[in-house]
């Protein structure tokens, strides 16, 4: 069968499934029914990819409006949220470090400390990603910082984009950026979750308790990610052929910092400093990211020119905005209530205790995440879960923590803006994310089965 025919059949099947939703005997308004059908269509198209993700997202927003489910402002509300424009700034910063040569210099410098073996570099990247979670709470920011180094590492190894080395490095720091911030109260999802557990669950949530509850998981995840990537993507070169001599030569070749590189470096340092000190000044990470991206394009700074600005790929921005719009539409039309009712009526009977039901909760959360990106998946479901926990004498903290952790399990790009940012560097494909995501999700669930009944009761989560 030709690719065109396959695409057509896939598309028709996805459309048929989503249209059938309209005819289901569900208690909901016509607007909610339309919104649900369109959302299912979008999710299926994102999963099976008959057309580009961004086109699917944009078409979905258009359909929300054109079918009269919601107003234009609601259907396209994601475009007036800060996340897609944070991404816009992040893409500009990524282009800046690559074009000025700063990425290469950074990479050579890092490699001269960590070593020239790929396995060591990979481990270093994962550990840095983990450690940065404490000081840079924004997943997108972490990805931008690590991408600026890894772009140079890929170049230093002399391999092409989408080579095993490039895939391995980019997929792992992108993916772990969305896991580690569930194991700490850092990042939008866990911060929102903490607030909701305290408000609706009526229990205090301590940073330290959360941290210790997941500490073993952090360490095992670091090791598991490293081993999984080395297994899935064996490097084309185990280490740099000429070793440290090559690094020294390359650093010498780069010579002193050029004017553009210096300005780019200063801008990155200021950005980093602002991200690291946000607990002092409380400037949102997105404001810093977008501001830095725009500053890089200003004519007198001479870091990037207007052509570089014009070349910024708009499709990741459209995709992220569409995903955010989808969440707003589901909430506003109350279609999410229907999803919640159907979903939790099946899940709740399986949850008898925190210890024994960790697996059920984790996988239920994983599936629920297909319909909503984070942190919307947390904000729409957590109040219901907390109500369920309280009425059944279950630990709201335990239930809430597992549910939040489940938001880390992802296998599709559209599920998180952080994944879209990593993907936008063009170093890995959607199928790589599916593969790595699926393996790590299984690994994380196994770790959880061990932790919940053994460690958690020791620190008062039962």
């Amino acid at each position, binding site marked *: 069968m030709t690719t*065109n025919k396959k*695409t*057509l059949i896939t*598309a028709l099947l996805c459309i048929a499934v989503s249209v059938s939703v309209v005819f289901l005997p569900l208690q909901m308004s016509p607007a909610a029914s339309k919104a649900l059908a369109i959302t299912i269509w979008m999710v299926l198209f994102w999963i099976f990819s*008959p*057309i*580009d993700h*961004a*086109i699917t997202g*944009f*078409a979905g927003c*258009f359909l929300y*409006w*054109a079918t009269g489910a919601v107003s*234009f*402002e609601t259907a*396209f*509300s*994601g*475009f*007036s*949220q*800060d996340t897609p*424009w944070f991404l816009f700034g992040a893409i500009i910063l990524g282009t800046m470090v690559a074009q*000025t*040569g700063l990425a290469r210099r950074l990479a050579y410098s890092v490699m001269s400390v960590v070593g020239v073996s790929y396995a060591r570099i990979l481990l270093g990247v994962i550990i840095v990603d983990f450690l940065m979670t404490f000081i840079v709470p924004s997943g997108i920011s972490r990805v931008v910082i690590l991408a600026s180094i890894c772009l140079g590492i890929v170049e230093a190894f002399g391999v092409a984009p989408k080579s095993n080395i490039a895939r391995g490095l980019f997929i792992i720091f992108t993916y772990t950026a969305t896991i580690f911030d569930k194991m700490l109260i850092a990042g939008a999802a866990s911060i929102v979750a903490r607030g909701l557990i305290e408000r609706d669950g009526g229990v205090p949530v301590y940073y330290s308790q959360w941290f210790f509850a997941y500490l073993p998981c952090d360490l095992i995840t670091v090791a598991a990610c490293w081993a999984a990537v080395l297994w899935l993507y064996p490097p084309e070169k185990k280490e740099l052929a000429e070793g440290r001599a090559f690094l020294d030569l390359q650093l010498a070749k780069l010579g002193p910092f*050029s*004017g*553009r*590189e210096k300005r780019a470096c200063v801008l990155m340092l200021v950005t980093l400093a602002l991200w690291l000190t946000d607990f002092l000044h409380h400037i949102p990470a997105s*404001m810093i990211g*977008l*501001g830095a991206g*725009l500053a890089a*394009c*200003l*004519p*007198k700074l*001479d870091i990037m*020119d*207007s052509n570089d*600005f*014009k070349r910024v*790929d*708009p*499709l990741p921005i459209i995709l992220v*905005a569409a995903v955010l719009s989808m969440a707003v539409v589901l909430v506003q039309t109350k279609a999410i209530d229907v999803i919640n009712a159907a979903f939790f009526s099946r899940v709740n009977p399986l949850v008898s205790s925190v210890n024994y039901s960790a697996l059920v909760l984790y996988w239920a959360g994983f599936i629920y995440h297909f319909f909503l990106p984070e942190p919307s998946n947390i904000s729409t479901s957590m109040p219901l879960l907390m109500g369920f926990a309280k009425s059944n004498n279950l630990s709201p903290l335990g239930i809430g923590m597992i549910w939040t952790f489940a938001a880390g399990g992802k296998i599709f790009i559209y599920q998180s803006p952080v994944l879209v940012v990593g993907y936008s560097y063009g170093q890995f494909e959607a199928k790589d994310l599916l593969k790595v995501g699926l393996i790590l999700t299984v690994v994380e669930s196994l770790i959880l089965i061990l932790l919940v009944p053994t460690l958690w009761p020791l620190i008062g989560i039962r």
Partner: protein
Amino acid sequence: MSTTTATATLHSEISIKQLIGLIGAPLVLIALWFAPTNENPAAQHAIAISALMILLWATEAMDHALAGFVGLFLFWALGVSRFESAFSGFSNETPWFLLGAILIGTMASTSGLAQRMAYTITTRIGTSYSRLLLAFIIVDFLLTFLIPSGIARVTVLATIAAGTVQAIGFGPRSNIGRGLLLIVTYTAGIFDKMVIAGAASILARGIIEQTGNVRVLYSQWFLAYLPCDLLTILCCWRIILWLYPPEKEQLTGAGCEYLREQLDRLGPWSGAEKRCAGLLAMAVGLWMTDFIHHLNPSIVGLSIGLLGLVPVIGVIDANDLRKINFGAIWFTAAALSMGRVLAETKGLDGLTSTMMSWMGALIHSPIASTLTLYWTGFVYHLFLANETAMLSTSLPVVLKFFTAQGFHPLPIGLIWTFASGGKIFAYQSAVLIVGYSFGYFEARDLFKVGLILTVVESLILLLLVPLYWPLLGIV
């Protein structure tokens, strides 16, 4: 290129005008921010940031979209408005309607349909120079429906016109060459004000709906300017024949042969062309009949644009989408956001009373109001060269002022938009620059033709506004 050379190039590219913008815009922002006025602080700060945006747009100190983003970022970062308001233009239908229009244009040129249409009509009509000239003007008008980008239309038509001029043995500065290229270029910037096609009229429609709170139908706009379209075609034709009498009236076989050869080279209709023709017919059909079904023009534009991206049905793919000039879309959204912030902070009220109060005495009759509006728009466009920038910065203020005086926003918006078509210098539009870059006419040719046509258009408008528009319910 070494880094040093690249930096030097970047420096040398900044002209004095841009330098004025780069230095002047922040100074104006600071001056207006701290100026002792009676405005409320939010309004004053919104005006200060808007002034920075306008100055950056007017001096073209940086990319228009980038200047827009800088302004929106400042609205948010300096606490003038919430993020949702500062970036509200992105959740307004206008920029996405423009995306739909651009997608349609990309479909027409990528599939080869636009070229086929141009060659077919010019081959059929153009047996003499004057007929060929008329054919090019008519094709330019008809292509406005298919290719909503003036630059794309000029690129397609000027390439064909230049090839024809060379084939019949004339040079770039011959009267035939001047006449053909000049009129193809100039009309590309007029026709798209008389149809909702192209960034300027799409943006204007959005602003009229947003600020004036009225529905703007595609068919109504089209019918309002239909007599003007026909008169413009005739006037352009006669004026060019008068100003640039051809060296030779009857074309040699080579000219017609060239056009026929090019048409033959296109071969039979490809699948992509057929699909594109079907989609375009659907779009034009739906737009023209929107007074019956009342389907929003943006829905039509966007749905056809998106269908064009669907495999099997469509003509283009995600890579074509990536190559689209998103700067125009970002800029349109930024301009709308600026208007929204100004309105929300009440900065628009202050601006309107300051900028428009002198006009009050001149708008006592429909004729006087029309003339005042048209020529004020024309003069304003001399200073704010880019037509979308000209409309986005002035139209909300103009609408606010005239509606306060008891005028209906629709005719005011229509006239002001039309005024942005009057141009006499190449710098006033990227479309003119593209046509000028072919080297077939000089700046003084553009000045001469532009001035005559601007006067002619204002006279046509004087007839239409009081006599014809009331018949369509536009009063």
